[in-house]
């Protein structure tokens, strides 16, 4: 790794240096292709984000792909019902690595206003790993753009080698996650225990 001072000194002289890693991540973070699907009203905001006024194309992410094989990013835009959850997980499994997930809106991150409902999944992160959560009901396009920029920062910080490299570069870590199926009363399993455990609440009188 090059010394930052030397790098800026060279830059003043007109010599630009980079690493393969940052070049690779630069290319990847400026061509994030989302999967084209929306689940509820958040999808309307997602569509607005891609249109001329908010212009997601500035981030290289306007190419919404209709096939999971060509997509890098899954935007879970809306309420994930228990009927839909297996399909969402299966689509995530079918995406090629490296793949990222933005959980957009209150429903996708926690169930939102339907959290007490019997038929709504209380957050997609119970089944698949989520990289960026956006609160809001629905989040404004600016919030989605902020999520994109956050994701870009995450990708820029990913290392190609070493023990801290991301999941997709570690051959032993899984690319697919178990797809739940419909049970008698709930999804089976109701959550992926490797992905998500209920937060422990400690009650004490003190």
């Amino acid at each position, binding site marked *: 790794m090059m010394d930052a001072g030397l790098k800026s000194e060279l830059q003043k002289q007109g010599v630009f240096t980079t690493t393969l890693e940052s070049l690779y991540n630069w290319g990847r973070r400026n061509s994030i292709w989302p999967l084209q699907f929306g689940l509820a009203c958040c999808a309307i905001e997602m569509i607005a984000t891609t249109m001329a006024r908010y212009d997601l194309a500035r981030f290289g992410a306007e190419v919404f792909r209709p096939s999971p094989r060509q997509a890098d990013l899954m935007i879970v835009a809306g309420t994930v019902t228990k009927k839909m959850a297996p399909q969402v997980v*299966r689509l995530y499994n079918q995406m090629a690595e490296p793949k990222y997930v933005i959980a957009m809106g209150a429903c996708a991150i926690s169930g939102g206003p339907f959290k007490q409902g019997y038929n709504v999944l209380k957050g997609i992160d119970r089944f698949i790993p989520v990289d960026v959560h956006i609160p809001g009901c629905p989040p404004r396009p600016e919030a989605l753009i902020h999520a994109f920029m956050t994701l870009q920062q995450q990708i820029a910080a990913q290392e190609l080698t070493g023990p801290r490299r991301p999941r997709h570069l570690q*051959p032993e870590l*899984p690319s697919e996650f178990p797809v739940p199926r419909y049970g008698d009363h709930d999804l089976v399993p109701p959550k992926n225990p490797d992905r998500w455990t209920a937060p422990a609440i400690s009650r004490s009188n003190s």
Partner: protein
Amino acid sequence: MSPTPAEVSSNYLPVLGLAVAAALCACTPLWLGRLWARYFSPGKPGADKLATYECGLESKGDAWIHFKSGYYLYAIIFLIFDVEAVFLLPFAVIFTGLGAGAFVSLLVFLLLLAAGLLWAWRKGILNWAGDPARASFRGELSALPPLD
């Protein structure tokens, strides 16, 4: 004096060089991509990822099923109305300038087409669900196993 074989081959040597360069230009990125994938993109195939269907649902059943091909009959019947419109429209445009002979011949034309439609109707073709007793056309179709 014609050039000797040695001269011909030396004349074409630059072409060979270009061909090699073109092949290298095509193959090097592919090879570099493969090299990159080997170190920085470990393949992780799985049952879901290798599935053919990509809409999120699981495919069920077999693609090699029998399906009802009865629609072609409707397409043929449509031709009756199609041809009728083609001839009736110019006829209507110059209707007032025509004699009785033209009118009668067109009536005969219409009658022939109507007779064809009537014949198809009586055969039970217009009945999509199928009347097994009358649909002699579809004897072979109704013998197929029903769909899901």
